[in-house]
Structures are given as C-alpha cells and as structure tokens.
C-alpha cells in the first residue's frame, strides 16, 4: 500500500506515510518530495507516527529526498519515529543526518 497523507502548511509540507515504509511505499514518497522541491517547497517534514516498519528502501527515499531538498536550501526532517525506525536509523548511522524529532512541531523549530 503506497498510502500517504499530505498537508501543505504554507512554509512547510508534512507528508505522513502509513504502515510499512518499504520498497512499495518508498518510490511514491521520494517522487512526491522531488516534485515538492521542484515546486519550491523544500521544507518537508515526514511524519512517521503511523509507520510501524521501515526498510532500507524507505531509508533510501528519505536520504534521497534530504539531498534533493538541501540542494535547494531546504531540508527533510522526520518526526514521531517509532522504536523500529529509530533502531534502524541507529544501525545505519543515519540518525546523524536524519535526527528523529519527537513531534512535527519540534521538527519545525527554526523554520
């Protein structure tokens, strides 16, 4: 299921995938981030509250999106990551460039 919700808040956009953020769900999210950045919306929060599992494809989509957004002066930040997501970020050392914020509000701190 490649389901995700999107909320454009003006200065930033929140994308909220659900369920498994895996090789099925990752490509549409990555494509959406690319489209948003191309449209000048490079500040993106990925709200992971409803994600119970991430795989390396999901991580790849986040890293790819992060690179695209940063090239345009924006960022991709993640919020409300569950235990499995945090464990995988740590295992892969990606928590250093994709620090998990507890809430969407905290992710916005300097925007």
């Amino acid at each position, binding site marked *: 299921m490649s389901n995700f919700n999107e909320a454009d808040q003006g200065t930033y956009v929140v994308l909220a995938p659900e369920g498994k953020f*895996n*090789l099925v769900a990752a490509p549409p999210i990555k494509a959406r981030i690319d489209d948003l950045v191309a449209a000048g919306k490079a500040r993106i929060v990925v709200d992971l509250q409803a994600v119970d*599992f991430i795989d390396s494809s999901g991580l790849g989509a986040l890293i*790819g999106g992060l690179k695209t957004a940063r090239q345009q002066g924006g960022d991709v930040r993640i919020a409300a990551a569950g235990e499995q997501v945090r464990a995988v970020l740590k295992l892969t*050392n990606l928590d250093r460039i994709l620090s998990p914020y507890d809430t969407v509000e905290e992710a916005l701190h300097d925007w």
Partner: protein
Amino acid sequence: MTGENEYVLEGFAVPDQLDAVHALLAEAAAAHPELDPMDVMLFETAIIEIANNVVEYGQPEGEVHWKFTIRVREDEIEAELDDTGQVFTPTQGAAMPGEDAEGGRGLAIAEAVLDKIEFERLDDTNHWRMVRRLGQTPPV
C-alpha cells in the same frame, strides 16, 4: 522437527507478499510470548531485507517462488528462505554504506542484527539461513 514451533509460508516473491512475511513472523511471535519484542523487531528487519533482495532482483521477475520457514527455539530464532530465482551471489561482509548513499544497506542491516547469515546455491534453489540468538544485550 515436530512442526510445533515451525511457521511456513509459500508463494511468489512479489512485493505484495512481503506483508505475508511480516504476518508469518507476527504469528510466530504471538505463539511465543516469551520472545523479547526487540529480538522480534530486529529479526523482522533483517529477514525483510533479505526478502526484499529476492523480490527486487529475483529473475524471472514475478515468477520466482519462495518458501519461508521460521523456527523459534529456546535460545534462537531462525528463518530459512528458499527461492527459485536465478543464481545469486550475495556480497557478504560489506560495510554499511556512507550516510548519503541511497541504497546498498539491505544486506548490511541484516548482517548487523543477525548472528548467522548463510547462503548457498542448492541445485536450482537459492537457500538463505538467518539466525538471531535470543536475549542478547545490548540488542543493537
């Protein structure tokens, strides 16, 4: 093997079937409440990465048949995966890719959380055996 602690899934190695692999492990975990949820979670992360590999690279695409067997023992949890895809040579022992890499982490993640990961080609089948010892600390 009595079959009591064995959970088996057979089907095609296609993206939709990944949910069935999650469900198979959930079934095993539900029947074994003694399992530490952290062990189950990390084991799930590993076996899904290996399953992803078969789904993504197994040829002919959509026609690869697989069989997953999960066994819960007192001191370890094991998964065996047999698939009918083409001959495959995994690059084991690869380092975790750098932080800006968009791919190449699957096997490295699996190796990081498994105590044993074995691969062999048996006749026309790829055979994976994945084991995590239970109750280790620290878990990651």
